[in-house]
């Protein structure tokens, strides 16, 4: 009665083919990339050392390390997130805890979505027009950080909202019922229960702010700046700075005769830093998700 008919056999064959085709599609997006990263590391190997991190560029950036660019990137990331994280979290609190479903708030949602889709080079034009010229910050770390802050803002809003929305409504109702106001509820119940998700979202933006090039290229990043080796505070906020992403672009397109492994090492460093930060966020998220009690 359950003998395998030709029809069933054909069906099973199609199933196997489909499965392997889809597997191949998934694999073909990942495997070449792993190979490419391996190749980058191999080419970068002669330059990869601790000295590369803490040395300053030498002989017209043809050799040496990346210290000034590394410090500049840290400046930009810290400053931009110092602006976008509080604003983004509070905006998400408004959207998730206060806003009613009316046309005005739908427009805010639309604005968040579109802000996330604005091309990075348009952010650069905005930063140039608004911060460098109109606000008279000039080409400076401030202008570049603010431009980056506006670029990371919508993603922080979205991830924070998701974290806030995952707190069950019953938690809030319990708190309201003992007479707490809206803000007291947010402070005592909603934020403590979603802080892990909020932090994960912010950490993920660290890597994004560190990797972006176009928005800082015309607002505050500079090709080269003389910095002492090992100087932790080489920049002032109204000055321009170097940045890793910009440094990689400069080395690979603008400087002739660079020692071959130097741009590769810069790329590997940038890639490694970004993957490290993201992996940390992903592990943190997994750990906290496993501990969640509801």
């Amino acid at each position: 009665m359950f003998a395998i008919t030709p029809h069933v056999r054909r069906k099973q064959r199609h199933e196997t083919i489909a499965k392997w085709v889809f597997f191949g599609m998934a694999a073909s997006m990942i495997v070449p990339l792993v190979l490419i990263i391996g190749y980058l590391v191999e080419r970068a190997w002669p330059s990869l050392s601790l000295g590369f991190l803490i040395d300053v560029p030498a002989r017209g950036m043809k050799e040496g390390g990346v210290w000034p660019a590394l410090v500049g990137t840290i400046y930009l990331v810290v400053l931009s997130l110092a602006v976008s994280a509080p604003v983004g979290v509070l905006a998400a609190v408004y959207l998730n805890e206060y806003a009613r479903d009316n046309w005005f708030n739908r427009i805010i949602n639309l604005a968040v979505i579109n802000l996330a889709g604005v091309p990075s080079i348009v952010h650069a034009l905005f930063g140039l027009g608004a911060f460098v010229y109109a606000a008279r910050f000039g080409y400076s770390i401030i202008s570049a950080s603010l431009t980056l802050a506006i670029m990371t803002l919508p993603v922080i809003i979205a991830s924070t909202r998701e974290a806030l929305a995952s707190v069950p409504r019953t938690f809030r109702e319990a708190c309201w019922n003992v007479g707490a106001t809206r803000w007291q509820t947010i402070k005592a119940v909603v934020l403590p229960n979603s802080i892990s998700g909020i932090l994960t979202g912010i950490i993920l933006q660290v890597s994004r702010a560190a990797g972006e090039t176009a928005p800082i290229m015309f607002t505050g990043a500079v090709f080269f700046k003389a910095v002492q080796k090992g100087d932790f505070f080489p920049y002032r906020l109204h000055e321009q700075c170097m940045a890793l992403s910009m440094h990689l672009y400069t080395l690979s397109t603008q400087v002739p005769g660079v020692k071959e492994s130097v741009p590769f090492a810069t790329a590997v460093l940038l890639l490694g830093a970004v993957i490290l930060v993201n992996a940390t966020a992903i592990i943190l998220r997994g750990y906290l998700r496993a501990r969640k009690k509801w």
Partner: protein
Amino acid sequence: MNTPPTSRPAEESFAVRKATRPAWDVLSERALEILIYLCGISAIVFVLGIFFFVFKEALPILGNSHFSLTQFLFSDQWYPTSELNKRYGVFAMIAGTFSVTALAMLIAVPFGLGAAIYISEFCSGRTKETLKVVIELLAAIPSVVWGFIGLTVMSRLIVNYTGAPVGVNILNGGIILALMSVPIIVSIGEDALKAVPDSYREAGLALGATRWQLVRRVLLPAAKTGLLAAVLLGVGRGVGETMAVLMATGHAVHIPHGIFDSVRTLTANIAAELGEAPANSDHYRVLFLTGVLLFALTFIVNLAADLVVRGIRRR
């Protein structure tokens, strides 16, 4: 805050407590809520701000008698620094943007959706989690690193295997852009498939359908709007991408005739020339006008994706 004595009746103690809440506490809470509201509307302010400032810098060129908007949009002659015969036509760049994005989508859409189907329907448990994490890490690779990969690795491969005279061309940019848009297509596509109710799957399997039959006859039709949104967001990313295409597509301003031609995209054009254009010159203003064009393009694409997603939710 002082706790009311327990001997009082419940109703009275509530009233007392409310009355004794210090004024500064109430006021600071009010102030904080106003701050929260201001942050909430900041997204609108920034979107309008971006449009305002970019448009403001571009505006004077529209009133200039040497400049015509039709020429800007439909002429392929771009000689911004010529002494005698300045021409500001970005049609070649529009063609560049569309050819690179179209090639990228031709590669990324089937592979991205295929990967999304594999992750969502054909694997489970640890494999699924691992694949999702890898896709997430892929999405984090900075665009300048992609550009560097295009410039060094991909261009060498293209020259070696196709015999093209230069390795930085539409093919290179298209492949790089495809690899960059796959993560977003996979994650949104997977969300769309996840949103199909399990009862659909159960009904299909109960009728004896294989997974493949289920995907083809049930899931794809049910999730098609979500998958469309995934594709649209991929297009939005492709049109707006700057550094990777700047480094990987070469720098020729002309209308391409094949995938081995070098092109320049709208975004790359701004990135390449903004540094050289003196502030407030015509050249500078035309670059800002290109920014307005890009802003409008991505706005439309993202709006369309949002409407599509909203359509699903309503249903």
